[in-house]
C-alpha cells in the first residue's frame, strides 16, 4: 500500500476505489478514498471463498476501466476475475523485488494488460512483456 500511495497522482481525473485487506492502514485510507476491505484470507478456508465472491461482486458492480495493483497476493484473484470479465489490468511489481520475480508477479504476468517492474534488471527476468518505466523513489 505504501507504494501505490506514492503514485496516486497518476490517477488524477479518474474516479478511484480500493480493494484491500482489512487493517489499520485500510481504515486510515477510508478517510480519503472509497475502500472495500476483505479479511486477510490466506490460510482460512471460509473467508478465502467468501472473499472471492466479494471481489467478483465488487468488480461486476463497479465495472472499473482499469485495475491497478502493486501486490500482494490479493491481486491474483482480482486480476483473474478482471481478465475473465475483459477488464484492463496493470500490475506494478514491488520495489522490493530487484532481480527475483515475486509469486504474485509470476501468477499475474500472463494475464496482465500492462506489467511494470521497478528495476531494469527485473524486466529481463520476466520476459518481453515486462516494462521498466521508472520506480516510486
Amino acid at each position, binding site marked *: 500500500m505504501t*507504494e501505490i500511495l506514492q*503514485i496516486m497522482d497518476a*490517477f488524477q481525473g479518474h474516479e478511484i476505489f480500493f480493494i484491500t485487506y482489512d487493517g489499520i492502514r485500510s481504515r486510515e485510507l477510508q478517510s480519503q478514498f472509497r475502500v472495500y476491505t476483505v479479511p486477510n484470507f490466506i490460510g482460512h478456508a471460509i473467508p478465502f471463498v467468501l472473499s472471492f465472491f466479494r471481489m467478483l461482486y465488487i468488480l461486476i458492480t463497479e465495472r472499473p476501466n*482499469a485495475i491497478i495493483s502493486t501486490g500482494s497476493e490479493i491481486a491474483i484473484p482480482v486480476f483473474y476475475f478482471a481478465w475473465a470479465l475483459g477488464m484492463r489490468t496493470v500490475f506494478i511489481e514491488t520495489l*522490493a523485488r530487484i*532481480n527475483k520475480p515475486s509469486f504474485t508477479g509470476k501468477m499475474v504476468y500472463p494475464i496482465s494488460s500492462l506489467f511494470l517492474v521497478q*528495476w531494469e534488471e527485473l524486466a529481463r527476468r520476466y520476459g518481453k512483456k515486462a516494462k521498466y*518505466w521508472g520506480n516510486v523513489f
Partner: protein
Amino acid sequence: MIFVTTGVQMPFDRLICKMDEIAGRIDEEVIMQIGQSQYIPVHAKYFRLMENDKIKKLNRDARVVVSHAGIGSILTALEQHTPVLILPRLKMLGEAWDDHQLEIAAAIASNENVRVVYDVNDLEKHLKVNYCYVPRGGRHALIDSIKEYLSSI
C-alpha cells in the same frame, strides 16, 4: 531527533543495541521502533509498534532515520523528506530469512538520500554528518507514463 526503525517481522537487536549505546553518548534525542527485538533500550525512548500516522510524524520530525533495509521503512522516510541511514539485516546473523536486504541496499545506494552502512560500528560516525534531503523527481517518470497509459484506454 534520530528515529530508529526495524519493521515488525523479526528482531533486529544488532541495530537497537548499538543505537541505544550511541544514544547514551550523544545529546540528540533517539526514539526507536524496536518491533520484535529482545534488547530493551535504556538510553533511548522506544516502542514496539505504532499507528501509521504517528510513524509518519516521527519520520517527518527526525533529522535522520536509521532503518533496516526494508522498502516500506525507507519509502516512509523519503516520503517525509528525511535522509535515511540503512543497515541491512543479514541472514547469517538470523536477522532475516534471506539476504534480500543486501540486494535492496545495493540497488538503492545510488539514491542521494540513502546511505548504506554495513558495519554497525560505522553508525556513530555516519550520524555525525549533517545530512540534507535532496529533492528528486524520481517517481515522476513512472507517474507520467501510467497517466498517459490510462488516458489512452
